[in-house]
C-alpha cells in the first residue's frame, strides 16, 4: 500500500470526502452550519475525485 501511495500520491484525494463528511463532523454540527456544510461537501466530492483522476492521467 505504501508503494502505491508513493507512486500515485494523488490517490490521497480520495480520502478528502471522509475528512469533509466524517473527521470534521463534530466541529460543524450546529444550526444552520451542518446542512450547508454537508451540501458543500457533496459539491466538493466530485472535485476531489477529479483531482485523483487528473493525477492518474499525467
Amino acid at each position, binding site marked *: 500500500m505504501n508503494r*502505491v501511495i508513493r*507512486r*500515485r500520491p494523488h*490517490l490521497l484525494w*480520495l*480520502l*478528502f*470526502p*471522509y475528512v469533509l*463528511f*466524517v473527521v470534521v*463532523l*463534530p466541529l460543524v*454540527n*450546529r*444550526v*444552520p452550519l*451542518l*446542512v450547508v456544510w*454537508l*451540501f458543500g*461537501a*457533496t*459539491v466538493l*466530492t*466530485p472535485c*476531489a*475525485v*477529479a483531482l*485523483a*483522476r487528473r493525477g*492518474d*492521467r499525467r
Partner: protein
Amino acid sequence: MSPAVVAVSVFGVSMVLTVVLGLLAVRREAGGGLDAWSVGGRSLGPVFIWVLMAGEGYTSFSYLGAAGWGYNYGAPVLYVVAYMSCGYAVGYVVGPMLWGYARKHGLVSLSDIAAHRYRRPWLGAAVAVLATVFLLPYVQLQITGMGVVVSTISYGTIGLDLAYFLAFAVTTAFVVVSGLRGSAWVSVLKDSLVILTLGFLVVYVPLHYFGGFGEFFGRLVDEKSEWLSLPGHGGETSGYGVGWFASTTVLNSLTVVIFPTTVAGYLGARDADTLRRNAVWLPAYNVLLFVPMLLGTAALFVVPGLVGAESNLALFELVTDSLPAWGVGLVGVAAALSSIVPMAVFMLVIGTMWGRSVLSLAPRLRHREKGAAQLVVVVAGTLALAMTYTAPNTLVRLSLISYEGMAQLLPLVLLGLVWRRMTLRGGVCGLGVGVAVVCVLVFSGHDPLWGVNAGLLALVANLAVAVSVSLLGPPETGDDRRDEDVLALEEFTDAAVGPAASPGRG
C-alpha cells in the same frame, strides 16, 4: 376526468414505455449468454454506466424513507449523502480493480469472484446464498415502496395489495427479458424524470407554501432547528448522533463498493477508465438527495402530525396537495422507476449469482446458466412479494440490516483480493463472527451500540478474526497459482492508468 384517472393514465403509459425500452435494449442481444444478460456483455459506456449506477443508488427509499426521516428526525438522514459520496470516491479504485479481475477471469458476479479467489465453488455458492438473504429485504423494500407510490398517486383507488403485485409483475417481466442492458436504458428515462421532478419540486414547494426558499429555510431555522443538526429531532435517545452518523458513513461507504448490485454495474463497463470517469461524476447526483430531506421538513409545516409509516408519505402529501393530477402522475412515475431500476438489478444479481455459483454446481444445469438465472429471478421476486404481504417492516431498518450484513463480506472478498496471505479459513471464520455479531446486536435492539453502528463493530471483529486466523493458522496449501492469477493488484500498477489501458474493449 377524475384526478385518479389522469394520474393512473400517466403512470400506465409510462410503465408501457418502460417495458418497450427494455425490449428495445435487448433486441440486438437476443441469444446472448449469461454474460450478455447479467453484465451487458461488458460493453456499457460512460453515459449508460452513469445512469445505471445513479439509478441503483437513488431508490424509492430516496422518495419515501428519506422524506420520512427528514420529517421525523431531520439531519440524520443525510448519512445517505455522506456514505454515497465517500463510497463513490472509494469506487474510483475498487471499481476498476474488480472490473479488471472479472474480465481477466471471465467472472460475472461477486460470488463468482469469491469462488475464483479461493478456488472453491462451494464458497461461491455460500456467498450467493448469504448475499441473497441480505438482498431479498431490499427487493421487498422496493416492492413496498412502489406499491405505496402507486396506491398514493391513484388517490387510493388502487389498493396496496394490488399495487404490490403490479410492482412485482412489471419488474420481474422487465428484468427477465431485458437484463442489465435494459436496466441501463430504462435508467435514462428514470434519471431524466428524477432530475426533472426533484429540480422542479425543490423550487416549487418552498415558493408555493412559504413564498420562497429563503423564507422556508428561515422558518426551519427559527421553528424547527432541532431538525438541522445531529442527533436530529429524536434527541440523544434516538441514537442518531455524531458517532452513529460517522460510523454509518464509513461502514456503508466501504460496503457500497462491494454491494452485488454495484459490482454488476462495475462489471458491465466497457473499460476501467469508464469507471474512473464515472467516479468523478456520480457524486454530483447526490445533490438531489437533499431534496427529499428538505421536502420532508417542509411537510412538518404543511401536514403536521404524520406518525409512524405515514411519515414516509411526507413528500407525496405535498405533491398530491399542491400539484395537478398529471403532475402527481409524473412524480409517481419517477418514484416508481426509482423502485423498478434498483429492484431489477437486485433481482438480476440474485439470478446471476445463483445461475453461475449455485445451480451450475449441478452438471445438468451447467450449460443452462442463463435460463436457470432467469428462473431464479422469478422465484426471488415471488418470495419477496410473499414477504411483503406477510412480514412488512419499516423501510430504513431493512436497508440498514442489508448493509450491515453485506459489509461482513468485505474482508473475505476485498482484502482477499489484495492480500495473498488471507486464507479461506481466516475469511470464513471472520465472516461467521461478523454476521453473528450483526444478528445479535440488531435483533436484540442494540444497534447502534455506544453510539456506533453495529455493523462497523461487527466488521472490526470480523477483520480481527480473519487476519488473526490467516496469520496464526496454517497457510493455504495446494494453490500453486501465481499471485497475478489470484489477486487483483493490476489496478495498482502504473500500467493500469497508462495510455494503453484506457481504450479497452468489452
